[in-house]
């Protein structure tokens, strides 16, 4: 599902942390292109730099050197407030520990992201309901996170990530807190969204179930890309209806 123009370009990314005054090289000259519609997993052992790379691609962290181009726009030199705006309008996030707002219901959690974008109330509600239906939680619109299982919460998180119609979704260990059944259900949904909507997913994971589904796997070791390979991915037949 690739197009010629890369959606994301990481060019010569270096990242060095100062850990107790000792410089630690997290990423060392990493360059990758990710195209629209890719279902990519960045894998590697702990400390290999996969979360750092994801954070830099997501505009949550700055590279020490190198550039990140998203849709041709260099985000490396954006100010913190510009980055917040950029993330709001271009990137969807799915976190390991779901990170829903506990005082809001499922539908409100999804609407909240659109509210930040200034979407009208009517449009927010309509899209939030459609997204929750798409992830199989049409009957949990008004449930608060503590009334949902881990798998259900993560599905709400996916719906929330899609709410802002982002250019791509970054998912940091999305299945790590889920049981096997929930993890598979979640991956089914993500994979189907990828196929139907051409939604670009980039995972940071060590979960073999994610690797099994990924079309492309980027192996990071000690801050370097050790291997970057395309696979067929374990593609299932889509069951979701196309989103509006």
């Amino acid at each position, binding site marked *: 599902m690739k197009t010629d123009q890369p959606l994301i370009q990481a060019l010569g990314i270096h990242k060095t942390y100062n850990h107790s005054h000792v410089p630690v090289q997290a990423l060392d000259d990493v360059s990758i292109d990710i195209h629209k519609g890719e279902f990519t997993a960045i894998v590697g052992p702990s400390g290999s730099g996969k979360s750092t790379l994801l954070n830099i691609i997501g505009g*949550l962290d700055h590279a020490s050197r190198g550039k990140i181009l998203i849709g041709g726009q260099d985000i490396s030199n954006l100010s913190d407030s510009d980055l917040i705006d950029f993330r709001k309008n271009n990137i969807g996030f799915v976190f390991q520990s779901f990170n829903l707002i506990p*005082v809001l219901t499922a539908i409100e959690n999804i609407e909240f992201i659109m509210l*930040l974008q200034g979407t009208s109330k009517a449009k927010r509600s309509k899209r939030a309901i459609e997204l929750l239906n798409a992830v199989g939680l049409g009957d949990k619109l008004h449930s608060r996170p503590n009334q949902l299982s881990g798998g259900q919460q993560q599905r709400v998180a996916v719906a*929330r990530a899609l709410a802002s119609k982002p250019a791509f979704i970054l998912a940091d260990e999305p299945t790590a807190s889920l049981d096997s059944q929930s993890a598979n259900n979640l991956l089914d949904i993500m994979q189907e969204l990828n196929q139907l909507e051409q939604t670009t997913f980039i995972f940071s994971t060590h979960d073999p179930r994610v690797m099994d589904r990924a079309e492309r796997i980027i192996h990071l070791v000690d801050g370097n890309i050790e291997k970057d390979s395309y696979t067929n991915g374990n593609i299932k037949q889509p069951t979701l209806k196309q989103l509006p």
Partner: protein
Amino acid sequence: MLIKIAWRNIWRNPLRSLVLIAAIVIGVWALIFINGLSSGMVDGYISNAISNRTAHIQVHSLQFERDNEISHCYNGIPVEDFLNQSNKVQSYSPRIIVNSMMLASQSTLGATIIGIDSIAEDSVNPYKSKITEGKSFDSSIKYPILISEYLADKMKVKLHSKLIGNFQNKDGDIVAAKFRVIGLLNVAKGDGQEMNILTPIDGLRSLTGFEDTEVNEMAILMKDVEFISEFQQQLSERFTSLSIKNYKEIAPDINLMGIQIYLGLTVMLVIFMMALIFGIINTMLMAVLERYNELGMLMAVGMNKTKLFLMIVLETIFISIVGLPIGILMGSTTIYIYQQKGLQLDRWAKGLEEFGMTSVLYPQLSLTIYGIIAVSVFITALVAALYPARKVININPIDAINKL
């Protein structure tokens, strides 16, 4: 939705929020009640002083003002005419004031004899209501006097006792007269009025050689305290050779008392607000730090720092002002109850009387003070919100999201 989130966030930890709300309720209630009590005390003191001592305005000759000599009198008729023409004047009382040495069979004491028109004086200074023994003046007794219980006790005299008064007449000659005590007055001690002796003005005129129109003092009571300044000005412009003073100028202690009490209340208000600030900061910091992860997520998904700041400020204001109306309601109810039945302070009655106050206090509080308390709590909440809110916007989203 920001408001909704902020409001719901307050109730994440209901016990903690309720403790802070209860503290605010009790604090606001206490502030209102103490303010009401103090206001009642000050107002009681001022109205006592006005009715017993100073009236609202006093008119003297300039010389009398300086040396308090009986000879410095003035023609009261033009002043009375001026007062009669004004619709802002409630009543007035012409007075002759004589410093005397009073002799009883067992004691001698300096006192001030005040010659009064019985009816006019009672409309300014309701002395008849303070008679505890005996009666008011009648024409059957020559030179009748009313003295305070305190003076009677000091001079070891009682009702119907005779007292010899020695004093100067208008010409500076010493005259002596025999007075008879026809009544005892219960007046507040400590402000000098317990040393006053009241007698009919006509009798004192004949003893001092005053003309029928001459007086030393004209005590004026206005219909409203608001009229005092303006009317004082008018009088001053009309009677340039006379000294016209209002009650604050005559007895600075009245003003001082008010200032002292309000100063005390201001200090109390500031202390309460300081305690409130620290209470709110403590609670909000706990609330914010336990949501570190969530706040990081909000920044990650695109909530800008202004909105985040606003959310924390809203939470702080909500948690602070929830207790405010309850505290105000409780405080105003308490004041209303004691306004009706009065707060009995019998235990401290003696001490209060020494300061010219009564032992039954009627708390009262103006809407302005309620407003000041409400605004103070609001501003305090706003100030208290700044530190936690500032802490939140400095969160690094990556650190926060990864924090367990």
